[in-house]
Each structure stands twice: as C-alpha cells, then as structure tokens.
C-alpha cells in the first residue's frame, strides 16, 4: 500500500481501497470486467479470498490501521454462496463491524459490502467507482496519525533522563 502516495500529488484525493473479493463470484466478476474492458477506479487493491465469509473482521481493521481509507467486501448474492451460507455470516460481521467502527470515529460508509455474481462485472465496476467517490467526499483517514503524541513527548523523556543523571551526580 506504499507503492504511491495517493492524495498528496494530484489535485484529486485518490483514496486507498482494499477490496476482498470472493473467488467464486466477485473475483470472477472483476476478471470479467477486465476482459470486457470495463473501466473502474485504479484506487482499489483487490485481494482474492475463497469466500466473503473468509474475511475476518481483523483483516478489515488491519487494513484501516495500515492506511486504507476504505474497505470493500464483495461476495456472491445471498443464497448463492459456494459454501452454502457463509455470506450470511458476512452480513452479520459487516453489521457488527459497522456498529463497532462508529464509536471508533470511522464512518460506517468506509466499509462497503457488495454482492456481485460472476456475470456482474459491470455492477462490480460501478460499485467500486461509487465507493471511491464516497471516500473522496469523506477524505483521507490516515489512521496511524491518531497514535502520534504531540511534540512534548521526547523533550519530556529527555528531561527525566537529565534530572536523573543530575541527581546521580554523573557528569553529563
């Protein structure tokens, strides 16, 4: 995710999107979009998973922590899951994640759930573009910036070291 620095050079903010696509429907849909030369936003980084039900909430949180501005999960339509009912679990995890993201200060719109069958390359491409547009409106997330302390931290640490060595009468 550090290949380029989107959002810093151009006039238009290019969000970083991590997309988890299910092997059986949505990944095939993206493949189809490619074969059919359907254009969609290059902001998206696609990760193929065997099922949308394979997407552990920690994958999503890790993506945000590592600098993603949005995360998209795409799978087979409800009822069409290759593994019978795992995409229903995806719905529940998605709901649980959104509920958790809100109090953490991450807009729930930054997590997008899309159903795209293997024939819906056009639909997937449009969904990705819509999601990227939404993220442009929301702006950058820059999660690790939340962990930084203000500049007084290193000075305060040095002050403790100085005071202690003074008290110990050790020449500096």
């Amino acid at each position: 995710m550090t290949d380029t620095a989107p959002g810093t050079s151009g006039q238009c903010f290019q969000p970083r999107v991590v997309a988890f696509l299910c092997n059986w429907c949505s990944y095939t849909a993206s493949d189809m979009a490619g074969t059919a030369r359907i254009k969609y936003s290059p902001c998206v980084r696609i990760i193929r998973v065997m099922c949308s039900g394979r997407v552990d909430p920690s994958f999503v949180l890790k993506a945000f922590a590592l600098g993603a501005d949005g995360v998209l999960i795409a799978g087979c339509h409800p009822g069409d899951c290759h593994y019978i009912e795992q995409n229903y679990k995806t719905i529940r995890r998605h709901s649980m994640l959104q509920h958790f993201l809100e109090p953490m200060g991450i807009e729930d719109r930054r997590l997008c759930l899309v159903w795209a069958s293997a024939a819906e390359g056009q639909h997937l491409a449009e969904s990705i573009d819509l999601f990227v547009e939404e993220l442009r409106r929301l702006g950058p997330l820059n999660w690790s910036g939340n962990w930084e302390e203000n500049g007084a931290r290193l000075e305060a640490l040095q002050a403790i070291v100085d005071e202690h060595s003074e008290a110990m009468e050790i020449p500096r």
Partner: protein
Amino acid sequence: MSEAAKGKLALYWAASCGGCEIAVLAINEKILDVAAAFDIVLWPVAIDAKVRDVERMADGEIDVCLFNGGIRTSEQEYMAQLMRRKSKVLVAFGSCASEGCIPGLANLSHRRQVFETVYRDLPTTDNAEHVEPQHVTHVPEGELHLPVFYDTLRTLNQTVPVDYYLPGCPPEAERIWEAVTAIVQGTLPPPGSVIGAETTVCHECPRTRNEKKIKKFYRTWQIIPDEETCLLEQGLVCCGIATRAGCGALCPQVNSPCIGCYGANEGVHDGGARLMTALASVIDATDPEEIQGIVREGIPDPVGSLYRFGLAGSELRRSRRKTNGAAAKAV
C-alpha cells in the same frame, strides 16, 4: 542456593490499578520461595529500593522484570525503557501491560477529555479553581516538572520489546507461580510467547454446550440465566469463546458471562475482532435489517463489550482524533 547464585528480580508498575501487585502476593507463602531464589531489587509497592539504584546497575544485570501497567505518561515510558535495558527478560505482567486493559479504554478520549472529566466534571470533584496537573510549574527555587500525560495509552510492547506476556486482570496466582517456576527452572517457552494456556475459556467451562443460535442478546441485568447451559446460548455476550483459558472459567461458574480479562487466545492479535466473528456466527438471522437490530439493540456499547480489555493493544489502538497528531500540541 547460595547468595552469590541468586538471581535478581524487579517488579514495576505503570498505569495500572495495583491489582497485579496484590496478585503476586496471592501466591501466599510461595513468595518466600521467590525471595529464596531471587534478590528483589525493585518493587515500589513492597520494598524501599530506589530507581537510582537500578540506574546504577549494569545493563542486563536484572534477570527478570515483571512489568505491569500500560504506558500513559513520559515517566512510565522512561521506566519501561530503563527496565528493558537493565533486564535480561522483560515480562508484560497482566492485562494492562499486555493489551491495555481498562486504562486503555481511555483511548476513546484524549488527555484534554480525561483531565476535564477527572479534575472538573465528576460530581465528586471539588475543584472550583480548576487546578490541573501541569508539566512545568514555576516556583521561586526554579522549575518543577511533572511527567507528561499522553493522549494515548500504549501497551508495553508498543513501547519497548517484550520477551513474555502473562495475561489476566489480574493473572491468577497459579499461573504466576507456573511462570515463576518456569523462570527459575529455565523452562520458559520461546521468547515472544504468552506464558499460559492455548485454549479458550470454553475449554475450562463446565456448562453444557449445544448448537448456538440466538435471536437476541441480553444484558446481564435482563435475565437470570440457568446454571447449566452455555451462557452465550442463552443470549448473554459471554467473551469466553474468544478468550484465553487460564482462569478456570471463574465467571461462568458463578452464572456470570466471561468479560474477556485473559485477552485473546493463542494466535489471535485482535481479540475484539475474533469476538465479532464468534458472535456473528451465532446470530440466527439472515435478513440484514433484522441482524442490524439484534446487534445494535443487544450490544449498545460495542467497544466496551468487545474490547473491554484489549483496546490499546488492538489493530486500531484508539478512537479517531480530530487533531490527528501534530495539531494536538496546543492541548
């Protein structure tokens, strides 16, 4: 064991409640065995050793340091760095040092909010002049310094490299004794390990488990659960399913759901995420709106329920700050 062959042991506390210190004493008379095997060189709660004495030691002179508490102030960060430098083995002792614990829930706010709550807004606070701790205070004799209070509580391993983790809020006496024994006998697991069980609380829980399918989450005051069946099956958010074993399933045995104080089980970095997965699996609904209703109504405080002990050590570590770092300098 002769005096010369005695190892050196240090215990230190940072942002914690002091419960871990009590937990060490809960090994009862075995503390004498600890004293027989180790010279205790620093333990602020129990002995009168000085930080200065530790500073004068050679690097790595202390054999083992049991460090409890999260890192909230510059002084605690300094002590974490000092204890790391002077100790051969640094153990993150207890939930605070390992994953942030309850003090880590303050990561939902920042320093300004913490100060305003504690020194101004609490009903029991009598502070008409709004006196607050200042980093620098000028007095006729010169400047006085207090440690800087950070916006974000960090775990020990987010501050310095940690060799071992001993989970629990607080760790159970038996687990502490097992860890001490392993240290004395040299049978520690590979560095970086959690010293403890690899299974979940469910493994130790005597309740009967069937298929879990629930239509509604209940809060503990809403129902009196039956004493035989799995609490999660009865709709209580029991964290045991995603929590490391080691406590002997104390809470479920007294009809109270596990709150997750032993942290994520083996191989899991983000315990709350694992709990989300687990809870999502047991909800008996397929309609998105119905699911949303069950989740939102049943878990009104998702961070407090899912990350009660692990927020600071989780993937996200804290809630979003408007200031996002540098701009917070004025705070």
